[in-house]
């Protein structure tokens, strides 16, 4: 099934809601290895996005995602502002003019966004950043779709990969961002950005394939 512009709006609203409810948890994670503002930063940004969505709700998917990126860039600040902003700006560029997306186009768009984040932040996997949940998620998504999986299954496989990547950041020693000043002391804490990035992936699965949510043992 194709992904409509309204489905994309549902995904954005679901992510905004997840950020709002996880706000304190994200800030708590950031206070351990950063400066205790990641939840506040992300929530400030997505509340602004929610306020702006009606104004662009009639435009194409690319335009919507571009507008989200611009809004995040101008309201979040810190490291996550430009990074999440770039993610949506690049997704928007990759989906410019489209009113619906095929699963492959969706995967390609997300991949372009994640590549943009990696370029902007000069981060690779293993540096204890959002990259550690974003990259595995996009890889799992594409692999599943290429392997013939349904979008619904692919979304939940991506969610699982993102969650694993998020959990994998805990033992890592940060080499990017504020946490890197802590050196060895950054190990033993889950990365806040990787945590919010997992919510981004999960929001799509929950918005578009709620009934398929696997029951983890």
């Amino acid at each position, binding site marked *: 099934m194709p992904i409509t512009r309204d489905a994309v709006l549902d995904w954005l609203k679901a992510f905004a809601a997840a950020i709002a409810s996880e706000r304190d948890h994200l800030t708590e994670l950031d206070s351990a290895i950063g*400066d*205790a*503002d990641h939840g506040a*930063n992300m929530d400030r940004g997505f509340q602004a996005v929610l306020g702006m969505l009606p104004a662009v709700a009639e435009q194409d998917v690319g335009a919507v995602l571009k507008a989200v990126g611009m809004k995040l*860039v*101008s*309201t*979040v*600040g*810190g*490291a996550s*502002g*430009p*990074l999440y*902003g*770039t993610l949506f700006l690049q997704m928007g560029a990759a989906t410019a003019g489209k009113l619906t997306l095929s699963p492959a186009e969706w995967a390609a768009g997300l991949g372009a966004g994640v590549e943009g984040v990696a370029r*902007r*932040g000069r981060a690779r996997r293993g540096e204890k950043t959002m990259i550690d949940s974003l990259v595995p998620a996009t890889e799992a998504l594409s692999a599943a779709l290429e392997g013939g999986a349904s979008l619904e299954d692919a979304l939940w496989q991506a969610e699982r990969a993102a969650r694993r990547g998020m959990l994998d950041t805990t033992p890592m*020693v940060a*080499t*990017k*961002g*504020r946490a*890197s*000043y*802590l*050196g060895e*002391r950054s190990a033993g804490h889950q990365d806040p950005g990787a945590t919010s990035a997992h919510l981004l992936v999960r929001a799509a699965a929950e918005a578009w394939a709620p009934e398929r949510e696997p029951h983890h043992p």
Partner: protein
Amino acid sequence: MKKLINKPEDVVAEGLRGMALAHADILKVQFGPDYLVRADAPVKGKVGIVSGGGSGHEPMHGGFVGMGMLDAACPGAVFTSPTPDQVLAASRAVSGGAGVLLIVKNYTGDVLNFEMAADMARAEGIEVEAVVTNDDVAVKDSLYTAGRRGVGVTVLAEKMAGAAAEERRPLEEVAEVCRKVNAQGRSMGMALTSCTVPHAGKPTFDLPEDEMEIGIGIHGEPGRTRMKLKTAAEITELLATAVLEDLPFQRGDRALALVNGMGGTPLIELYLVFQELARICKGRGVAIARSLVGPYITSLDMAGCSLTLVRMDDELLRLWDAPVRTSALRWGV
């Protein structure tokens, strides 16, 4: 929390309003997006210099806006980097046809936001150069960190780059002066007490009554080590040794010395530290050719100080001595 404020979320805007009212002869303040700009900007044919960063470090950067230093400053929320739209708007406002230099302190948030702003400005046809300052020797500069933090050198680089811009030198040369100051400068700071961020309402970290933090950042980031209090002579020795040996400074070098207060430390203590620093430099054959003593790059109400030394040559000395007219630094006019 004991502060002369109204609502924590209004501190930055109300402080900016006060700046605008107190210094209308020097600068203007724009809101939405927020930035401070020279009253006479843009200066035709002059490279425009824009800096900025989180608020809470006053007088940096707004106090350095004016003739001979910055054309504009972009204040973020307290301890949070400004957003690209602020930097873009400021760059437009100061672009006098000779290009714009962005002076950025090396923190991931600042670097990423200024980079995006630079991309946007270039997309609009403004010639942009960015220089990142990273002088804090407390952080190891390696593959394993985001690199050294930009601290005291930033103020000194803004002054000397500003003077080069007033000489109407081209963008590349003004940027080169800024890079040179950063390359020749090193800093290290220490804290006697924590700062208290308005929206947090309590001290960022606990520091026992008999301990201090050496190698502190300007946002209360952890330092190199925590240790028992020492005398001003011993503390200055600790900081100065780390700074002098990192460049390293050599016998015969001429230095510009900044003894900076973190916000809660009285001036008499900073002068006391300065005479210790002068003694140490003398002992190593390093001449303090110029100096600056006072609170210039602060961390809200934190008590403590930082030392910055820049190796100077004749060009830098001339640029340092050149006239400057800002609310926080003023001479020669």
